């Protein structure tokens, strides 16, 4: 059974508020967890007397407990991993690059009188007419 560090959604409709929890993977999202180690408010807020318009997000996290659970092998979800990497408990997750999409040849009509357009790849060989 995997112990996960994830977000449990509370708050109101269109106004989410998350508890950062440590719980078994197969339990319901909002059920009582093993431990609540913090909160995450995803809605950015401004400061009262700041006129620059800068926004911030408030997160409460028990660093000590987060380090412990990471140390004993709890698996954080994508968002929790991102938050933990911001404060240095984990390395930032580097996702592999997405596969590049090949250039689709342009449709020039049923009777292909014109030559097929050259490929966009710089070192690719010219297309052979079939």
């Amino acid at each position: 059974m995997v112990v996960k560090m994830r977000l449990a959604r509370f708050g109101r409709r269109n106004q989410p508020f998350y508890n950062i929890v440590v719980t078994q993977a197969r339990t319901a999202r909002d059920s009582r967890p093993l431990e609540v180690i913090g909160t995450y408010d995803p809605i950015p807020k401004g400061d009262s007397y700041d006129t620059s318009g800068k926004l911030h997000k408030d997160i409460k996290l028990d660093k000590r407990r987060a380090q412990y659970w990471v140390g004993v092998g709890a698996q954080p979800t994508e968002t929790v991993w991102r938050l933990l990497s911001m404060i240095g408990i984990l390395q930032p997750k580097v996702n592999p690059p997405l596969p590049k999409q090949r250039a689709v040849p342009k449709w020039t009509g049923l009777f292909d009188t014109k030559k097929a357009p050259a490929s966009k790849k710089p070192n690719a060989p010219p297309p052979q007419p079939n």
Partner: protein
Amino acid sequence: MAPRLRSGGNGLSPLLLTCVEGLSQRGGSRPLAGLTAIIQNQSQRITTPRSSSRSPPCSAPFSTSAPCELNREQRRMWAWLRGQGKKFKTAPDPDQPGPDGDTARGNGGGPNYVGSFDGTQVFRNNKLFKSEPVLSEKARDAIFSAVVEDQLPLKAVSQKFGVDMRRIAAVVRMRSIERNWIASKKPLAKPYQRAVLAMLPQADLNPGEMPFEPINDIHVHMATMQQLFHPTSESRHFTRRDAAKAFGAHTLPPDHKLRIPEMIDLERKLASGVPSEEAHDEFVAQTARTEASRAKRLKGRRTMAELNRTRVATDRFEFRFENFNSSAVGRTGRGRTAVGWRYGVPSHDRKPDQVKIPTKME
């Protein structure tokens, strides 16, 4: 069309017709033209010589109608015209103070309302809507300059003007917002302000006037409303602090609940004969000291809070991570200051007596 009135038994009836015609023809510009006509005619009538010594003074010489003794309603009308109604004889001049001496009502003279108007009535036809006096623009400017330009402590400004500290803070905040708006060339709602302030009674906070509001009132705690019989030895010096302890473990004595406790020393000095200027200077110095120490404590608290905080700036937002102890959940695990949304607790959003709006400035 003037209404027809019964004549006979009343020598004033043709004059009353004239009065009503005068009112309907001339409209509102000279409302009392007819009434002044009555007064003039009556005086003329009284001075004309009588044909017979037996006929009463106000009847026509040739008339055999009954004497025109005024009935109750007419007597009351004349009494009012000579008394309260005197101020309505001439239209008010906007450049002069009004008949009730109120110059602070917008444009000087102001309207002349029939009926009692003690200045607290905001709407003419609604006697039940009474307003407390509101700070005038002059008063607000004085408060702002005392706090920002003279740099007086808030408590001293509150005592000087007799205005609550929270209201002074609100005035300073609003005035600084107004200044920012003027600097950034935003339009201000000046006509609206003039109209609303003209409807309300205003206070200029002139020295020597009644204090604007109580500034040092103590909130009465519910625990202290109970009558207690606390046995204690006669030799014991039972203080207010002991009384507060008797009411409850965490109840504070009144000395600690005063908003401006320095005023007690000020009043004691004034009562014992210390010159007023010296006592006030000492009061201002004392309040400056207490406010400086409070500011230092707040700064220390903020520095300690910042030690627990990590700020990470990304290209869009700043993420503020606050470190805390997740084990600090109180004796039952349900501490009020514990972090996290509670499990199994229903939402109180639909409960009627919940305060759902901000209750303080942050």
